[in-house]
């Protein structure tokens, strides 16, 4: 079963200039990504640019509204994701606990609802 690990972090707590911590975090993420690959569970994963660069789009009454910034105005923002193959929720949660993001922010684990086959 595919599971999505959504990494939510507090962007305001991220240092503007790289520090030793930034380096540690990068090394931890590299190691984590490698471990996912070696265990054969990684399907995809990317980091997202800061939420300040986001645009929120909605169409109402045929009018397209585009707002600057992320959809949700919360302290923690979506900072990246991993898509993994895990036999069950438990083992997905176990992987989420190893994600460096879980010790500074929150990692949300969601099972993927498989898309229906296209109707033809």
């Amino acid at each position: 079963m595919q599971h999505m690990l959504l990494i939510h972090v507090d962007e305001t707590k991220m240092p503007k200039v790289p520090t030793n911590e930034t380096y540690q975090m990068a090394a931890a993420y590299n190691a984590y990504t490698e471990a996912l690959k070696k265990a054969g569970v990684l399907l995809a994963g990317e980091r997202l640019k800061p939420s300040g660069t986001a645009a929120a789009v909605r169409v109402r009454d045929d009018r397209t509204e585009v707002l600057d910034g992320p959809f949700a105005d919360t302290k923690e923002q979506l900072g990246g994701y991993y898509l993994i193959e895990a036999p069950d929720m438990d083992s997905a949660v176990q992987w989420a606990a190893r994600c460096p993001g879980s010790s500074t922010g929150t990692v949300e684990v969601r099972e993927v609802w498989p898309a229906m086959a296209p109707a033809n």
Partner: protein
Amino acid sequence: MASHGPGQLNADGPASAARAAAERAARDSYGRLVAYLAAHTRDIAGAEDALADAFASALAQWPTSGVPQKPEAWLLAVARRRQVDASRRRRTADAAREHVAMIEDERSGIAADEGFPDERLKLMFACAAPEIEPAMRAPLILQTLLGFDAATIGAAFLVSPATMGQRLVRAKSRIRQKAVPLRIPERSDMPGRLDAVLAAIYAAFAEGWSDAAGADARRTNLAGEAIWLGRVLSALLPSEPEVLGLLALMLFAEGRSAARRTAAGAYVPLAEQDVAAWNDELIDEAEALLLRASRFGAFGRYQIEAAVQSAHCARRRTRHVDWPAIRLLYEALAGICPSPVVAVNLAVAIAETDGPGAGLRHLDAVADDARLTDYQPYWAARADLLARCGDVHEARLAYERATGLQSDPAARAFLIARRERLGASLN
């Protein structure tokens, strides 16, 4: 009264004080309350449901009414009333009358300040009864006495949480249906049941022990709870060497707990721990227990593991670790209960006596075991041995693998630093 959303709770407001009090009561007395509530009915699931209701009521009422003087007695009374309601709904009026009589007894007992007797050991042995499937005994004890959820127990026993949840429900209904008596078994019944009880206590201790930073109060408390259960059990069964061995094992580990982190929270490996920060009193007590256990001449896994700890702790007097002894002990352990965990520990001991190359060969011999692909200690041990053999490239890869599998941030930082030092020595 103004309503507060959970997000607006003031850190020192009455609601959070009540919540803290309820959580403390849950931590301190979950197992006692379940054991007591189930003592007469043998209905563990019903007792847990009633107790969950009582905790919910506490969280709803205590913020306005204040925390009662005896939170445990309050929770017990409310849970009992829930049991009465449930038995009224489910069964006959007779059962309900029985419950009402119990409540009356308890009320007078609590009013007379007698408290309520501790039924935990009886419940533990009931969970370890022959009527219960052997593999479910320790998990059932953990859930019933310590309120572990199926996911945590599943992880500890390498079973999927859904399966574990179903099996736990079945096991509880067996205790009720088969009317398994809640009592300390006769001496002749003891050996068969003791294994499960010891395994459960040890699993609870390990769960608490793994939270080295003490960030999670409930988990840290588990280690203390496990030691307490070990003490009660050893007072009850002073001639069972494995009971003494397990208690010794836990006390050795607990005696080193203050040295596992620096003041700043950084991870300190066993070999680099400051012996001055160890608790001599606990370690001495553990030594005495282990000595007492050894006089019975029946060696088992807990005594062996305690002896390994003893050899490590010998460093506080002799300034060196007795690795040949540790190696022998792990070889003995591998004979009794072989597992990937024992294999990795044995490899480390072999590396200390015969050099890192020999340790590495032992690791290679077990490397095919699929359980090791995401077993963090295997990769950390491998990385260390590779580094000591001078295979910097492979060592770096193994350190990276270990780092990626580590969930504790302090230990992760330690591994990253080790890997980096490896790079530095190359230049």
